[in-house]
């Protein structure tokens, strides 16, 4: 038997708080994940508070500061330089974060949720329902995203909701197929059978046995997708399906800066960097989450762990 000091009676501790405490402790222990989490909090603050505070700075055209390089002298506004209409890049990054995060997050979450749900169904029902889902997925995969975008634009008109719809539809297949593949394997594992034998419904099995094992993979894909969605959005804006000016996203900032790449690298660089850092933070967090939830890695975050 192991030599544990049982001086503190474990039963006294409430079961719930323990889990969150453990997660928090694990977060503090992983420096990279901690930084990522802080960055994301900062981002959310900038998208909520910052965006409202700086809205006017982001739209004021000032041709004198057109493509102004990053500088310390011009006050905080031109710390990161000015864009092609002389607007403060910093202010635009902050203001743009709201739409960017809003659109990308909703698109990624929509496609993930819809994809995962359908994938679960397709994985669990091998009959006609599963067939239909998978063949519809085939169709979506073979349908060019741009055409989807144009069609939605034509039929439903441009709006943020439709934009999210277009972005989400085109990303559904990855999640769907990934979830299905995992379900096909995991549902054969003995512990799923054990749960079934105890009377677990399909929903229970999904909720407690399948999803927890699949979720890390989904989150990994989703966090990388985040960048892809932002960039795809900027690609659509020239069709009029993207966000319409004067609203803008980081993706649109990168896209307009494209023409100035040789002259003013900072115009594309900073929004690009923002996209990159956001994606990076999300992925670091999802990587960390994977370790925390992995039974064989969890010790890393325990008291005596490295």
């Amino acid at each position, binding site marked *: 038997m192991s030599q544990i000091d049982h001086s503190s009676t474990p039963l006294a501790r409430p079961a719930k708080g323990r889990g969150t405490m453990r997660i928090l402790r694990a977060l503090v222990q992983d420096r*990279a994940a901690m930084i990522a989490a802080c960055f994301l909090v900062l981002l959310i603050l900038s998208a909520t508070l910052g965006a409202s505070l700086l809205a006017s700075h982001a739209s004021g055209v000032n041709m004198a500061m057109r493509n102004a390089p990053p500088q310390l002298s011009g006050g905080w506004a031109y710390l990161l330089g000015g864009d092609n209409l002389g607007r403060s890049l910093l202010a635009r990054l902050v203001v743009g974060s709201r739409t960017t995060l809003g659109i990308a997050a909703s698109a990624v979450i929509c496609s993930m949720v819809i994809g995962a749900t359908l994938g679960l169904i397709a994985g669990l029902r091998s009959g006609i329902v599963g067939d239909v889902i998978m063949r519809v997925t085939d*169709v979506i995969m073979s349908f060019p995203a*741009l055409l989807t975008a144009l*069609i939605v634009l034509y039929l439903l008109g441009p709006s943020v909701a439709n934009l999210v719809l277009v972005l989400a539809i085109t990303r559904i297949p*990855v999640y769907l197929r990934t979830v299905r593949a995992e379900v096909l394997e995991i549902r054969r594992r003995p512990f799923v059978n054990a749960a079934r034998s105890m009377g677990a419904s399909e929903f229970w099995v999904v909720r407690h046995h399948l999803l927890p094992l699949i979720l890390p993979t989904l989150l990994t894909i989703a966090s990388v997708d985040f960048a892809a969605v932002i960039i795809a959005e*900027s690609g659509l804006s020239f069709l009029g399906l993207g966000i319409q000016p004067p609203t803008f996203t980081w993706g649109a900032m990168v896209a307009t800066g494209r023409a100035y790449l040789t002259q003013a690298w900072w115009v594309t660089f900073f929004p690009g960097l923002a996209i990159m850092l*956001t994606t990076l933070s999300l992925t670091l967090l999802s990587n960390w989450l994977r*370790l925390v939830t992995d039974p064989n890695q969890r010790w890393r975050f325990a008291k005596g762990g490295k």
Partner: protein
Amino acid sequence: MAIFRRSFLTLVSLLVLLILVFFLSRLTGDPSYLFLPVNATPEARAAFAQANGFDQPLVTQFITYVQNMLTGDFGTSLRQQRPAIDIALEAFPITLKLAGVTLAIAIAGALVMGSLAAWKPRGLVDRTVGLTSLAGASAPDFWVAITLVLIFSVSLGILPTSGMGGIAYWILPVIVLGLRPFGLLVQVVRGAMIAALSSPYVKTARAKGASETRVIFVHALRNSMLPVITVAGDIAASLMNGAVIVETIFGWPGIGGVMINAILQRDFAVIQATILVTAIAILILNIVVDLLYGVLDPRVRAA
């Protein structure tokens, strides 16, 4: 048996796809605006529509399309005035080559790097591979492409700017195209491998005396392949649809550019022909991926 059923169903999806593409693409607007000069008169537009059959009801147009298709006629490009299928078939091999090479490199690289990262999570390899691959995966592709051209072709003069040709011409396009697949796959491989490497059978392999390389690449990797091939399949499918940015920037006349132009130009015959070609490729790819599931995991095959 299953495979026949699967192929049949796939044919059904292809048919549905063609119907959708036919009708929906025609909802995106009247091509006469694009093909006639801005000052064309309404009469000229009517004549144009008549000459191309756009004045017929959509259903009639579709029936004609299907009839012609059965005789091997996939329509004529409005813009190029030649068989649309020729245009698609000229471009597709280029896309296929580029996608194949890129994907092969990205997958191979991701399997190695992702496995090494998973071997010691939070270790040095994990951190470096993670950061660099993600930086690549989340950077806007055209930005990377142009920057690379400016650095390697203009400043250093060691690589050609663009065009098709020998190995040197492949380097930049493959890098740019491969960044996102690589970044995503590294993460997926890493995740799946972390789980696989703590499975009991890995201990068995170690107890047999398998080298750590063998443990990683033969035992754990095989069991982590389900999500990896799924994601790789998805990436492959999107590459089949063409890599527009890379194709246009580097002047590779692949199917992505053709398709995008056709869509923007409302060149319906070309839209249909290119989608037909890529869809067949994607559908075959999906069948292959599904078959691979069974090969990789016998428990799935039993289903």
